[in-house]
C-alpha cells in the first residue's frame, strides 16, 4: 500500500519526530505533575484555596492553545526557542486535570481512615505520605494520564510555532497537499496518545488500593 511504503521509506524521520513529540509531552507532563500534585494536595487540605486555584486552572484551559502559543511568542526568553515555549504552554494545559484529580483523590480518601491516623499520632507528613497519597494515587495517576493524552494532541499544534514533533508532518502535508505526509504525522500521534492512555491506565490499575 502506498501509505505503508511511505512510512517504511521515511521511518527514520517519523521516529525522529515521534521522539521530539515525546520530549515535549514528557517534560511538560513532568513539570505539570511537579507543580500540580503539591498544589492539589494544598487545596485539598485548605478548602479556602480550592475555588480560586481550580478556577485559574480552568481559565487557562479555556484559552485556545494556538492563541496561547501566539501570546507567548514575543516573551523574551521563551520566544527564542519554540520548544521551550511549547513546553511551558503544554505544562499550563496539563495543570487542570492534574490539580483537579489530586484534589479529588485526596478529598476522596475515607475521612474516618484519615482521622484514625491522625488520632493515632501520625504527623501531617506521615499522614500524607503513608495514608493519603497511597490511597489517592490511582486517582492522581488518572489525572496524569488525562494530562498526557491532552498533551499529545496539543503538541501537534505546537509545530505551528516551530516546536517540531509530529505536527510538523501534518502542517507540511497540508502545505504540500499530500495526504501521506499528513498521515505520517497524524497516525503516530494517535498511536502515542493511545499508548499513553493504555500505559498509564495499566499503571493506575496496578497501584489501585483494594
Amino acid at each position, binding site marked *: 500500500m502506498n501509505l505503508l511504503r511511505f512510512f517504511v521509506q521515511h521511518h527514520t*524521520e517519523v521516529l*525522529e519526530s515521534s*521522539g521530539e513529540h*515525546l*520530549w515535549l509531552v*514528557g517534560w511538560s507532563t513532568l513539570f505539570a505533575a511537579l507543580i500540580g500534585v503539591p498544589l492539589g494536595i494544598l487545596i485539598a487540605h485548605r478548602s479556602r484555596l480550592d475555588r480560586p486555584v481550580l478556577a485559574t486552572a480552568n481559565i487557562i484551559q479555556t484559552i485556545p492553545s494556538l492563541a496561547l502559543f501566539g501570546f507567548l511568542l514575543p516573551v523574551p526568553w521563551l520566544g527564542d526557542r519554540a*520548544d521551550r515555549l511549547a513546553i511551558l504552554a503544554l505544562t499550563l494545559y496539563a495543570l487542570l486535570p492534574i490539580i483537579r484529580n489530586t484534589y479529588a483523590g485526596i478529598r476522596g480518601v475515607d475521612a474516618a481512615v484519615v482521622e484514625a491516623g491522625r488520632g493515632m499520632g501520625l504527623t501531617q507528613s506521615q499522614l500524607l505520605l503513608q495514608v493519603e497519597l497511597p490511597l489517592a494515587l490511582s486517582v492522581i495517576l488518572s489525572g496524569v494520564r488525562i494530562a498526557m493524552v491532552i498533551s499529545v494532541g496539543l503538541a501537534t499544534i505546537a509545530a505551528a510555532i516551530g516546536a*517540531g514533533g509530529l505536527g510538523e508532518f501534518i502542517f507540511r502535508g497540508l502545505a*504540500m497537499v499530500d495526504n501521506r505526509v499528513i498521515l505520517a504525522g497524524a497516525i503516530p500521534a494517535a498511536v502515542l496518545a493511545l499508548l499513553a492512555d493504555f500505559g498509564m491506565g495499566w499503571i493506575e490499575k496496578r497501584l489501585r488500593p483494594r
Partner: protein
Amino acid sequence: MIRSRASLGLIVVCSVALLSCSSSHADRIVVGSKNFTESFILGELIAQQIEAHTNVKVERRFYLAGTYICQQAMLAGRIDIYPEYTGTALTAILKQGIARDKREVYERVKNEYERRFGLTLGPALGFNDTFAMEIRGEDARHLNVRTLSQAAALAPRWRAGFGYEFMERPDGYRGLVAAYGLRFAEQPRIMDLGLLARALKDRQIDFAGGNATDGLIPALDLVALEDDRHYFPPYEAVPVIRQQTLQLHPEIEGVLADLGGKISDEEMQKMNYAVDAQHRDSQDVVREFLKSKSLVP
C-alpha cells in the same frame, strides 16, 4: 508493596527514556525549506548538490511554514541547512533595521548568526529576490522606461496594483512613494500576489508590485524596473547552515561555495515558472539546471 514498587520503578525508567528523546542525526544532513515554490526549489538544489558531491545522506524537510519555523528548526537541530534571504534574516530574525547595501547586509547577518545562533551563511546564490516593480514589456519599450525614476514621470497616467503585505509594510508602498515621488492615477488596487501579473498583462493595471524572481516576468513579457535609488532592501538568497554541521561535514563548505553566484534573476524566474506554471517536477527542473551549469556530471 513490592508490586507497586516495581511499577513505580517502571514509571521512572520510562520517564527517563521519554525525557532523553531528542533529535540528533550525525549521519545525515537535513535540508529544509519554506513553503513556497522558490524556497523548495533552492532547497532541492542544495540537496542535490550535496548528494552529487559528497557521501552524506540527505533528508528533505520542505514546506516548513515560515521563517520563524525554519529558524526554530535550525536552533533545535532538526534541520541543518535551509535557504533564507539576507533581508528577511536581518529584519524578521535579527529584528534590526534594514540597510541598503548588499554586502553590508550579508556581512551583518553572517556575523550576527555566527555570534548568536551558532549558524553561518554560505555564499549568496546570485539573485536578489527583492520587490520588483513591473510594467508591461511593450510599455517599457515604447516609452523607453527602464528605471523607477523614469517611471515616476509617467506614474500619474497609470493604475497600480500591490499585494496586501506590500501596502502594510513600512518598507513597502509608503516608502516607495516617498523615495521616488510616485503618484498614481488612483488609489492602488490591493490584490492577491498570484493575480498581479495577469492583471498587468490584461491591462487592468499598468504597474504591479511583485517579486524579482517571479516566473511570470519573462513568460508574460513583463519588465522589472531598475531600483536606481536603491530603495528596496537586498534579499539575496543564501544557504543558512549550522556550524556544528559544517564541523561534522566540512566537505559541505566546498559544495556550497560552488553554488555561489550561480543563479541569476532570470534563471530563478525560469525555474519558478517551470514549476509553478508548467507544473513540472521540481526535482527535474533542478537537475536540469545543475547540469546546465556543469555543477553535476
